[in-house]
């Protein structure tokens, strides 16, 4: 796909979609959204970038191998489940803290870190598959 229009538009669209995916990820906390759908959006952003600029450019841009990203997400999600071992409650129980940042109370939970983990798993796995499939076109 070597059209000038796509090549010009792809980077801003990718950036926008990545920002939007983070928004969806955080919004999912109390409203529709979440790590899974956010991860899908981010993976499609990378796929669009790959269509416009080639797979090598995407691999360069995300620095880590997609599978390593997925592994990191899996690690984060599993560790979030194990935090509750210190609170005397069963596996995967949501634990909350409410730190004050610059006067604003920010609720943080193991639920969020789990969801972020899911986000990375989905980004890594789907981007990995998409890049493999796109890469085949060029063979």
């Amino acid at each position: 796909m070597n059209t000038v229009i796509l090549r010009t538009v792809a980077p801003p669209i990718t950036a926008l979609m990545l920002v939007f995916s983070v928004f969806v990820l955080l919004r999912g906390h109390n409203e529709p959204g979440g790590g899974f759908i956010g991860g899908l959006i981010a993976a499609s952003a990378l796929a669009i970038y790959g269509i416009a600029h080639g797979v090598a450019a995407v691999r360069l841009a995300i620095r880590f191998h997609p599978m390593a990203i997925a592994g990191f997400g899996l690690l984060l999600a599993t560790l979030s489940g194990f935090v509750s071992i210190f609170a005397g409650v069963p596996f995967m129980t949501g634990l909350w803290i409410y730190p004050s940042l610059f006067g604003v109370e920010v609720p943080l939970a193991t639920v969020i870190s789990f969801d972020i983990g899911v986000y990375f798993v989905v980004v890594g796995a789907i981007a990995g598959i998409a890049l493999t499939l796109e890469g085949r076109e060029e063979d």
Partner: protein
Amino acid sequence: MAAPTTAPIDLSAAYLMAPTALADWLVIAPIGLMILLGAVLMMVRHRLHLHGWIAIPGLAALVLLDGMLLWRVVHHGPFTMTAGRWLPPFGISFTADLFGALMAFVAAVVALAAGIYALRDIDASGRRYGFFPFLMLLMAGVTGAFLTGDIFNLYVWFEVLLISSFGLLILGSEREQVDGALKYAILNLLGTTLFLIAVGYLYAIFGTLNMADIARQAGDYHGTAPLMTLTALFVLAFAMKAAAFPVNFWLPASYHTPRIVVSALFGGLLTKVGVYALMRVMVMLFPLQREDLSLVIAVSAALSMVLGALGALAQSDLRRMAGFAVIAGIGNVMAGVAIGGPTGVSGAILYALHSIVTMTALYLLIGEAARVGGSWSLQTLGGIYRKAPWVAASAFVIFFATAGLPPFSGLWPKIVLLKAALDIGAWWLSASILFSAFILTLALGRVFLLAFWRPQPAGAAVTVTTGTVERSAPLVGLVAIIVFFGLFPELPVRLSQEAAIGLADPTAYIQSVFPTGGAE
């Protein structure tokens, strides 16, 4: 959102209020450990020298954790942890009972042996492709399937181990592997999808997915729902996973294609997970329907063992022969499920445990034989006895155990099964157990004669690579287990009897999930 709500909410209607003992984490720790290590290994996939240092201690820790789990279950009975602090059946429960803990422990031992063997067997390209991360996730799936107390969660663990097994199967991407993997992937995916359909119907009928909850509802179910259809679907799905006749054809088509250590893991573990699920569902959840379906299961079992043994007789590729031996073993386990009763089920459990160890050992042995003899085929193999006497000695033990001859671990489960079959008057089932053992003895005896005993045929490739401790230690370890439990079978026999009783009468299991009678 605002900090803790000001209005007091009665959480005890939905939440477990008692604090969780640290020991209860034992049921989740093996699964969590494997997922964590899999994740870490995925992140360091390109630092090949780290893989072994992470994976082998991890698998040793898995053996330790599963051993502690087993010890706790033996001494204190089943115990449960429900994720997210929800009261069962709302949360996903993980319940360890004796059956699950036994299977998980033996699976961990076998995985450790295979992991050590893989240090030499899997080359750099296989590691770069991700053998060890896949191995960890496979073990997460296997252990999760053995320890979960929720039937949909069981489906999820099936998929976890399935997708890791796909990865392991096409390690290397040779032509045979792609061919075998296509058949394996499509048919196994169909099997799990059938399982999912059955889960959907189960939920439609009972409105719950917690196994303890289903067990207490199915016992005195008086509705009009077609439980028979449901259980028949379960039997078909799990028979497909377990490779029982007539849905066994994917196994000999694919199990000989990957690296031998992968075949060893698959032959030891994957079919046993299918058998485990069959027993969990048919013996514990639907005992009445099992009785009605027992003839179907028995016919399938008899045909699996006889045709598996005959298939083994017809193969000259050792790996394919081992695939048929796996099917024959599955037939024996299914026979135990068909017979039912404490004796039959305990025979099935004992055979499954024996089969996990022996089938893995058989594939590893074939790997060693091929390394010494330079071929997989009976046409060209020969002279292994002279070149590597210790391989021949292990072969002797493993072949005897596979065929069920004394004095090794294969004898006892067959005796229990035979007695159980004769007790209910199923003479044809006991005859097929004996016939299958006889044919397997012929097939394996011929392998010993041709590959080990006869002199090396002229013109055959003579490429003897030196043995290493990483290769021989796992094989010797597994052989030691086979010999030990052949000579001293009291402990496994007793444990499998207790496990069978716990499976047939799941009061303690239900008690551990619903200590106070549960929600509602």
